[in-house]
């Protein structure tokens, strides 16, 4: 079981499987629908993937580095959505009539506050709930499930059990029309945000000392400690970052659906889990690829075979578990 670093070169000597996979997905769907529709749906899929990436990247890093399956990750997503929504809605009512640009700009503090609160909660969660049972996988799944329930219920205590509508700023409504193809404005923003997060994470992971510590820690946390670094601190930082990202993802999704409910995170958790398994636990690149794949598949299927659409991602997960259980980009030993 040790170090199953299956190099893609070994599986198919001439062809790399991942680009081939994407080519197949894009190509087959292009054949199945008119080109204009294909562009619209592909962008829908990419934007969904981008949001999924933002939500999942934290969880995959946390698992890769600390071996912690944080079942409360969904609750952080929900919390982020609610806090962002509250901040945005209240700022909006205060700054009413300031114009469309101001309306859009109010998103920034909403996202910021949301990520900060989630980061703080992440810190408390790691300290109080996870650290006492660190190392015991069973207990850690149990307490994070418990924590998820508590957070979700507290959200309902403070915000009520009903859904909260979250209308987008004016500037993000509607679509661009380019050559007869409708491209929703919000989707473009989602993709941009997703790419920005992706790029920043890769920069930190590959070009900073903390990134070095994280990469080394994923492999051998004991040795990192023996080199004189407090790996525990690195863990906490990663957890906080993961929680903050979950919050941001929650806000993004909330704006996409224009509606948030207390069960938002619970439903998305399943998708997040599928993404991190397909991508390979602990791998940021894998997570991005998997998220895009899940988003694209889901969108194409919604158009082509709507009855099967909810099962497309789980089908993908089962296929990956059968063919390449360590995920698209393997890091962890299976």
């Amino acid at each position, binding site marked *: 079981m040790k170090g199953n670093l299956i190099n893609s070169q070994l599986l198919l000597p001439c062809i790399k499987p991942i680009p081939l996979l994407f080519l197949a997905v894009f190509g087959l769907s292009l054949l199945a629908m008119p080109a204009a529709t294909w562009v619209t749906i592909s962008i829908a899929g990419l934007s969904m993937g981008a949001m999924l990436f933002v939500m999942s990247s934290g969880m995959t890093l946390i698992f890769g580095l600390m071996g912690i399956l944080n079942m409360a990750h969904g609750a952080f997503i929900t919390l982020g959505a609610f806090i962002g929504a509250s901040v945005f809605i209240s700022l909006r009512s205060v700054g009413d009539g300031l114009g469309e640009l101001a309306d859009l700009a109010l998103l920034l503090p909403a996202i910021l506050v949301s990520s900060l609160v989630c980061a703080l909660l992440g810190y408390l969660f790691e300290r109080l709930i996870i650290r006492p049972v660190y190392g015991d996988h069973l207990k850690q799944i149990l*307490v994070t*499930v418990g924590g998820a329930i*508590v957070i979700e219920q507290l959200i309902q205590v403070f915000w009520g059990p009903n859904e909260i509508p979250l209308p987008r700023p004016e500037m993000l409504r509607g679509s661009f029309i380019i050559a007869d193809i409708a491209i929703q404005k919000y989707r473009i923003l989602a993709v941009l945000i997703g790419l920005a997060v992706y790029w920043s994470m890769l920069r930190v992971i590959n070009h900073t000392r903390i990134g070095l510590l994280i990469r080394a820690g994923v492999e051998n946390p004991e040795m990192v400690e023996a080199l004189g670094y407090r790996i525990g601190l690195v863990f906490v930082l990663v957890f906080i970052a993961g929680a903050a990202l979950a919050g941001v993802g929650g806000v993004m999704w909330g704006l996409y659906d224009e509606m948030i409910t207390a069960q938002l995170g619970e439903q998305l958790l399943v998708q997040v*889990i599928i993404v991190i398994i397909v991508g390979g636990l602990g791998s940021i690149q894998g997570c991005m690829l998997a998220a895009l794949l899940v988003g694209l598949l889901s969108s194409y299927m919604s158009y082509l075979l709507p009855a099967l659409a909810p*099962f497309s991602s789980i089908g993908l997960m089962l296929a990956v578990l059968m063919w390449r259980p360590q995920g698209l980009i393997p890091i962890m030993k299976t």
Partner: protein
Amino acid sequence: MIKFLKNALHNLLSASYPQSKMLAALLLLVAVALSFAPFLFQGTVAYNTYTKICIFIVLVASYDMLIGYTRIVSFAHTMFYGIGAYAMAITLKQLGPQWSSVMVGLSLGLIVALLAALLIAVFSLRVQAVFFSMVTLAIASAFAILISKLYTITGGEDGMIIRTPQEIGPAFKLVAEKVLGFDVIQFIAAASIDPSNVERHFEAAFFKFYFNGKTVLYYGIFTLSTLLFLLMLRWMNSPFGRVLQAIRENEFRAQALGFSTVYYRTLNVCLSALVAATAGAMTALQLKYVSPDVTLSFTIMVNILLMVVIGGMGTLYGAVLGVSLFVLAETYLQDLMAVVYSKLGEDFVWAGLFNPDRWLLWLGVLFILSVYFIPRGIVGELRYRAEGRRIKAAGLVKDDQL
């Protein structure tokens, strides 16, 4: 004679004794209460409560087979439960409310549950145990969506109402006249509030009820549940169970000894699924109604987790105590919460914490606290203390060096 009884007990419990006097007493209490439940507790709420306790003891014990004996957290248990319930419901609807339909429904449920268990095992037992948890969550969620989508057969989100065979319906009377019962709860409550009139309360506690189809159903469920529980005791204390425990302690060594962990784990998942499906079938017959909320919701999964953790993982008896405590609390504590909530008034912000709809919040807190402070569960703690007393009594000193 005594030897015969001892032998019988040994075989019945598959040599898995409570190992604690307190535990044995509690278990006996539960067993007696359940055996004579229709005669001891009056009313519909009580009926639903003790029937649910029987069914859930089986459901939670079957979950203990997974979490207690192999330390794997599965989130698909409600799926198996739901499969059993829906199979029964759909069959009864399609084939009519006869006993043959019940048999067919049960068999269908068992077959589908077995297939689902194999699916899960094949995909996730090849890799790390933590994958199992995630995969079960995904598959269970997909199943719930499936049930929702196939609303023409399953009734979708609204669920299905079922007609059951006449013999287990309220109209059927096994005994023509009403039968005598003694309401224990009423007696104890009245006697504690007003101890001076004990005799009067004693007389007032007697009640009469019809031994009808519902009572027959209860005894059917009770018998089946008892049999299943004893069967699980037997499984877990057989060589099969020992191998599972060996795998739990040290997987590598078990493999080195030649045991295929995949085979044993798969078998365990399948057996657990079959029992869970049977519990689902019983629930369908009892409630005469199935819906995703009642059988598949994540809340039920969390309830099961809580019951097994509080009761004690890896003990099977933990299911008995955990379920009894939990179901009683769920039924009666929520009423208490409602009282507190109404007293606090809606203006008070923190009143929301006592809203009976927020029952889950306290469950979650209790759950986390149990994992920290009573990780062995009630049964585990009782056994641990009993063992400590035994060691002291035998004059053995704990060897620090060992």
